[in-house]
């Protein structure tokens, strides 16, 4: 992009500047620190010039939005054409309480739904299972059968609004409940739009909500790819997630590298099943974190799109341009929030969200100020949603496409993160691939190292966190926190008991038996899961079949 002769002259000029102008300035006023680093502990230079991006080739490396390699965005008009989906992750207590929260959010201008499930649901247990002790409704909504799913979406036009569901181990089962819920309302599967997270690899790496060993888990994931590509063309059957990797303590480059490595692994499994890459790749979607370091995050999203497009086109030979697109949801960084001075979290969330928008996100969740203390209150979640609306309509950043392209700093950082990602791809390959690397604890160790380094930086004051190690206050927290229905548990368990009592026992047994046979064989399990759900089998019952056939996984413990 730059004339080599001009660059040479510029290098000379830069040397002069360093000696004269900069030298004088430093003599008079030394910089405020010896080291400047990103949230990922990467050094940040004083100044970036064309010399830092000397090899940048506009057409090859950036291109035009909506065209390969999509560095500048997946659509030609980006947020000028359509704003990102404002999708607030929400769920607590019973299906009734969460249904009311969804209606509240939609009434206040939310444009997509996102379900948070409670711990028992995430692990495939009914609310009253012994393993669920004390966990009902705490981290999300309890969904133990189709009856709960019907209440959760009661009165919500699921053929108009898209729904994202953060569910992994039991993803196929919860998805089946959603499909049957719609079916009972006369809405055909092809009319449904949304996403199931269904990214089991990152569960072993970071979020730890795995149930079965990796191979049978991957089989269930591919079953959903296959079923979705044939029956739910508008559904994203996976959201390949870096969010939880980052929350567990990784750096930005690790988040990107591990997520894309997982993505490439899913593609390999899909192809191995006998599908054409273009049959399922257009429905793969992604999910990233938006952490504190504004420019590093923007660079990460841009590098993500470029790498994915290249790998899909060059390595896997995908022909359909839609297969090359890295479409992603973003959530601001929960781990960056402080319990102290919670109002400060509104500000943190704002610039994190701004980075996601400038990085070209398709969908966004903004955290509420109270999330280091409890699940969000109605008041706090409204402020978080309004933050997105303010960015969309008042800040001006959504009015042009990829405005930071061409920034020497942002482009250099985009290149740096891309290089780091490829270095990790090679390491993972050398370990035998993603699953062997998981079994050897490679990712887990890398993340634990980074998390510990980050904590020691805070403890030693190399990193300042407002309200934590500087500008501390002793004031007690004064914001109102969410209160849940104290009778919710009884209501939920009573419903579950009613479901178990009222259903046709013979039909139930037959569907579970058929599922068991399918799980033991190699057929796609989705149609059988759907039949179980239609017979009102509970989550524990359906997952119990898989637990019996696949066994449960225990991870290597790594500090």
């Amino acid at each position: 992009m730059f004339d080599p002769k001009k660059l040479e002259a510029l290098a000379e000029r830069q040397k002069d500047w360093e000696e004269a102008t900069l030298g004088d300035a430093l003599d008079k006023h030394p910089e405020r620190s010896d080291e400047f680093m990103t949230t990922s502990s990467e050094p940040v230079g004083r100044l970036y010039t064309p010399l830092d991006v000397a090899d940048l080739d506009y057409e090859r490396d950036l291109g035009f939005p909506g065209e390969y390699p999509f560095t500048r965005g997946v659509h030609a008009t980006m947020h000028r054409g359509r704003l990102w989906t404002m999708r607030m992750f929400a769920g607590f207590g019973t299906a009734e309480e969460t249904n009311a929260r969804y209606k509240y959010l939609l009434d206040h201008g939310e444009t997509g739904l996102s379900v948070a499930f409670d711990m028992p649901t995430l692990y495939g247990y009914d609310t009253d299972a012994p393993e669920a002790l004390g966990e009902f409704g705490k981290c999300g909504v309890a969904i133990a059968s189709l009856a709960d799913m019907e209440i959760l979406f009661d009165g919500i036009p699921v053929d108009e609004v898209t729904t994202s569901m953060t569910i992994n181990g039991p993803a196929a089962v919860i998805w089946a409940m959603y499909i049957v819920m719609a079916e009972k309302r006369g809405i055909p599967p092809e009319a449904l739009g949304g996403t199931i997270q269904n990214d089991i690899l990152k569960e072993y790496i970071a979020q730890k909500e795995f149930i079965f060993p990796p191979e049978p888990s991957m089989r269930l994931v591919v079953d959903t790819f296959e079923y979705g590509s044939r029956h739910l063309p508008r559904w994203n059957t996976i959201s390949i997630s870096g969010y939880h990797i980052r929350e567990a303590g990784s750096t930005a480059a690790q988040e990107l590298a591990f997520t894309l490595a997982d993505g490439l692994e899913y593609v390999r499994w899909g192809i191995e099943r006998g599908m054409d890459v273009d049959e399922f790749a257009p429905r793969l979607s992604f999910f990233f974190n938006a952490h504190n370091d504004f420019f590093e995050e923007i660079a990460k999203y841009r590098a993500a799109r470029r790498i994915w497009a290249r790998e899909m086109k060059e390595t896997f030979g995908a022909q359909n341009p839609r297969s090359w697109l890295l479409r992603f949801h973003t959530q601001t960084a929960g781990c960056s929030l402080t319990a102290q001075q919670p109002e400060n979290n509104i500000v943190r969330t704002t610039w994190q969200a701004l980075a996601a928008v400038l990085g070209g996100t398709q969908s966004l969740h903004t955290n509420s100020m109270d999330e280091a203390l409890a699940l969000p209150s109605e008041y706090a979640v409204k402020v978080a949603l309004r933050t997105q609306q303010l960015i969309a309509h008042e800040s001006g950043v959504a009015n042009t496409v990829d405005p930071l392209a061409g920034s020497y700093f942002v482009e250099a950082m985009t290149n740096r993160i891309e290089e780091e990602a490829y270095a990790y791809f090679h390491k993972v390959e050398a370990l035998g691939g993603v699953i062997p690397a998981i079994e050897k604890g490679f990712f887990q160790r890398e993340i634990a190292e980074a998390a510990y380094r980050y904590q020691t930086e805070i403890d030693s004051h190399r990193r300042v966190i407002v309200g934590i190690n500087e500008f501390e206050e002793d004031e007690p927290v004064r914001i109102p926190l969410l209160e849940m229905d104290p009778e919710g548990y009884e209501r939920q368990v009573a419903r579950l008991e009613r479901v178990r009592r009222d259903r046709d026992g013979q039909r139930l047994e037959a569907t579970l038996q058929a599922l068991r046979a399918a799980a033991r064989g190699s057929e796609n399990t989705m149609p059988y899961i759907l039949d179980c759900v239609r017979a009102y089998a509970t989550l524990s019952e359906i997952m119990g079949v898989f637990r019996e056939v696949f066994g449960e996984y225990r991870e290597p413990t790594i500090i």
Partner: protein
Amino acid sequence: MTERTIRVLVAKPGLDGHDRGAKVIARALRDAGMEVVYTGIRQTPEMIAEAALQEDVDVVGMSILSGAHMALFPKIMELLGEYGMDDVLVVAGGIIPDEDVPTLNALGIQGIFGPGTPTDRIVEFIREHAR
């Protein structure tokens, strides 16, 4: 006089898999010269009490973010008592609302450390209070 090395069990009760804090604390305590046993995730109260007994620890540190602490901690304290481990220092961290702290203190959980606590404050607390 040589000081005995403090033995700590870092435990993750309940279903929640958020193990970042537990791992950071485990490493910080180890770097402070303590012997640390980390249980890994998804431990039942029985597993935790059993491990505390088997490992003959001086301290049990529990990390929980799911909000199930009011159901799980009393059970764990009860089992530690049954095993005759009343003199073990028990501390906890994670997302634990202020209003739960008096109840947990009354159960015998002496230190409760919320988000943002510097690790050296936890190290000091353990050094001061461990048997």
